[in-house]
């Protein structure tokens, strides 16, 4: 049975048998490259569900802030591996109640990076997209059809994903997938670390100079749910509002540190960025620091205390003592 078919059946059962009141999934969007979140309460609507390369955003965000519209109800949600790590994080951070969430993991073959797919099509409009789920994605437009290698248009977060299979799930649909090795995951970070400090500075500057301060990255990020974000405080203001490099950089670096030990590397930020900023690079670098110092990876272990909420006597303290 295909993943989508089984997903629809599972969700229909969950809604019919009284297991859940609401299910959060995806339906085909108005564009071929991006799916639309679907909130269903009627089992009949389970037929609209899809789960594929276009389901790029992280649906965990609908559990926090005023995006959460279902208090008191039992909610089901379809999860990629990274999405499930966000849910685990939420459960640990008391943002979601494990009893009232039904976690439906589905086989994830990676999601599209819209910037990469647009370049693959040479800037021409994509009107149809067919994915064989293995090696090739076919893009069709008004007067062209091209086959591109799947890996070349996947989000970079997927290419270095350490856990494509959802964790902690109550239902899992499809076949488990292999994750990349630790070295593959670290490659980009290691390359970055190998640069001289001037080169690292230039690389960072090159990325953050593109920022237009729309905060799409912050809003799609499941780990960004402060009741009042520091950029939304103006008495006194914590940060200037311009797109000058210093202001943009402060925004990104503070966000980067706020999600230290909490970023699940889902890459939703980078995919949402209208300016195609490589937002993952520093997040990954910080995730590596957390792993090496505190032996913790965000959202991987539901029983472990979050890295930033825990202290062990034997953890590295060289950053304090110099």
């Amino acid at each position: 049975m295909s993943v989508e078919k089984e997903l629809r059946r599972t969700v229909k059962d969950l809604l019919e048998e009284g297991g859940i009141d609401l299910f959060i999934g995806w339906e085909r969007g108005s564009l071929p490259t991006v799916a639309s979140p679907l909130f269903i309460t009627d089992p009949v609507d389970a037929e609209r569900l899809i789960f594929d390369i276009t389901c790029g955003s992280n649906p965990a965000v609908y559990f926090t802030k005023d995006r959460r519209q279902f208090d008191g109800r039992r909610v089901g949600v379809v999860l990629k591996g990274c999405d499930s790590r966000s849910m685990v994080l939420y459960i640990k951070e008391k943002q979601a109640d494990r009893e009232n969430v039904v976690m439906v993991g589905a086989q994830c073959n990676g999601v599209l990076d819209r910037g990469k797919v647009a370049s693959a099509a040479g800037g021409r409009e994509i009107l149809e997209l067919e994915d064989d789920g293995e090696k090739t994605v076919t893009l069709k437009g008004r007067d062209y059809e091209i086959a591109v290698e799947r890996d070349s248009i996947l989000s970079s977060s997927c290419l270095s994903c350490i856990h494509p299979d959802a964790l902690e799930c109550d239902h899992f649909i499809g076949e488990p997938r292999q994750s990349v090795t630790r070295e593959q995951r670290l490659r980009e970070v290691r390359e970055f670390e190998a640069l001289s400090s001037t080169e690292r500075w230039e690389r960072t500057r090159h990325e953050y100079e593109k920022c237009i301060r729309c905060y799409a990255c912050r809003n799609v990020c499941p780990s960004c749910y402060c009741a009042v974000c520091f950029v939304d405080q103006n008495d006194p203001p914590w940060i200037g509002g311009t797109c000058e490099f210093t202001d943009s950089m402060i925004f990104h670096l503070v966000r980067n540190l706020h999600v230290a030990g909490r970023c699940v590397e889902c890459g939703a930020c980078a995919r949402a960025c209208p300016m195609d900023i490589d937002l993952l690079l520093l997040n990954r670098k910080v995730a590596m620091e957390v792993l090496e110092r505190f032996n913790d990876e965000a959202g991987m272990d539901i029983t472990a205390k979050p890295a930033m909420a825990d202290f062990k006597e034997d953890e590295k303290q060289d950053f304090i003592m110099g």
Partner: protein
Amino acid sequence: MVKLKKNELDRLICRLAGSYDVYAPVDIDGNVEFARVSSAEDMDQSRTVTNLSPKEIFFPKDEVLFEYDADGIRPADSMDRPIAVWGIRSCDTKSLMLLDKVFGSAIQMPKEERFQDPYWKKRYDGALLFGAACAEPLSTCFCNWFGGGPFATEGMDVHVTDIGDAFLLNPVTPRGEDYLESLDFTAEVSESDRKAAAEIAGSAEAVMSPPVPIDGLDQLLPGLFLQEEVWGEVSAACINCGACTFVCPTCHCFDMQDEGRNEKGRRLRVWDSCMFPIFTSEASGHNPRSLSRHRVRQRVMHKYSYYPVNYGEYLCTGCGRCITVCPVNVDIRRTLLKLMTHDGEDG
């Protein structure tokens, strides 16, 4: 109408650059946006709709209004050359006309109190706009909902059609006509050139989906204002990122910020967005638009009700950028259809 051979485009751009700051679509790291050019080689004219709108040429993302120190207040460096834009589409020239109603004439004010924004006016009033016809409209283009079309000329000084080996330059305003008359390297337009342009126009029109009539939407919306459920429905997927408002050619809300310390500082105007919670956060701590659905409602009401009430037309030109950029596929066309067909009953 005159003809400009493609190999003469660079000559035109260089000539323009002699007396204007010239802007055109440029590929910057894969994103196409309007930037300063000094020759035709800098340009990327392949996109029907650029990633960012050209509004920032006239209404920058951030702008220093004045600086001050112990010696007094100084206006920020003001540009002394007028602006020329090459390759701007009709949805974007129309949007500049809409913004001009706000910044250039503020018609909702009594005549004696009308304030004209000098920062906007110094850029827009003397600008020379070479608009580009759209030979290949996108599936997200819906300019025809608002009376536009791939060959519309509203807001342009010169309308430019690419006929393969040459551009046909058609003056729209006296300013455009004067400029074309001053050129000594254009050619006459032949009957076959006209025919080629007409064919391109015909096939571009044919690609567009028929417009959806939204007459009366501005009158309908105030009645839906308090119907929380419908706003909840249209905003359910929205995560309130501001991307749509930042790429929009007509969104123009801004914030004033003062940066200063020790007798020295500056006042800035920066883009703001109704998607952000701080947008209407009040000094008391109360926020009348604390919920996502209220912020989405504001965006819809401003474009399709408040602005039309004040200025007589919708604050949207159907460029489709908000559709393309949205990470969760909130499609404004679907939102409008949903609101148009709402039965008016809550629940």
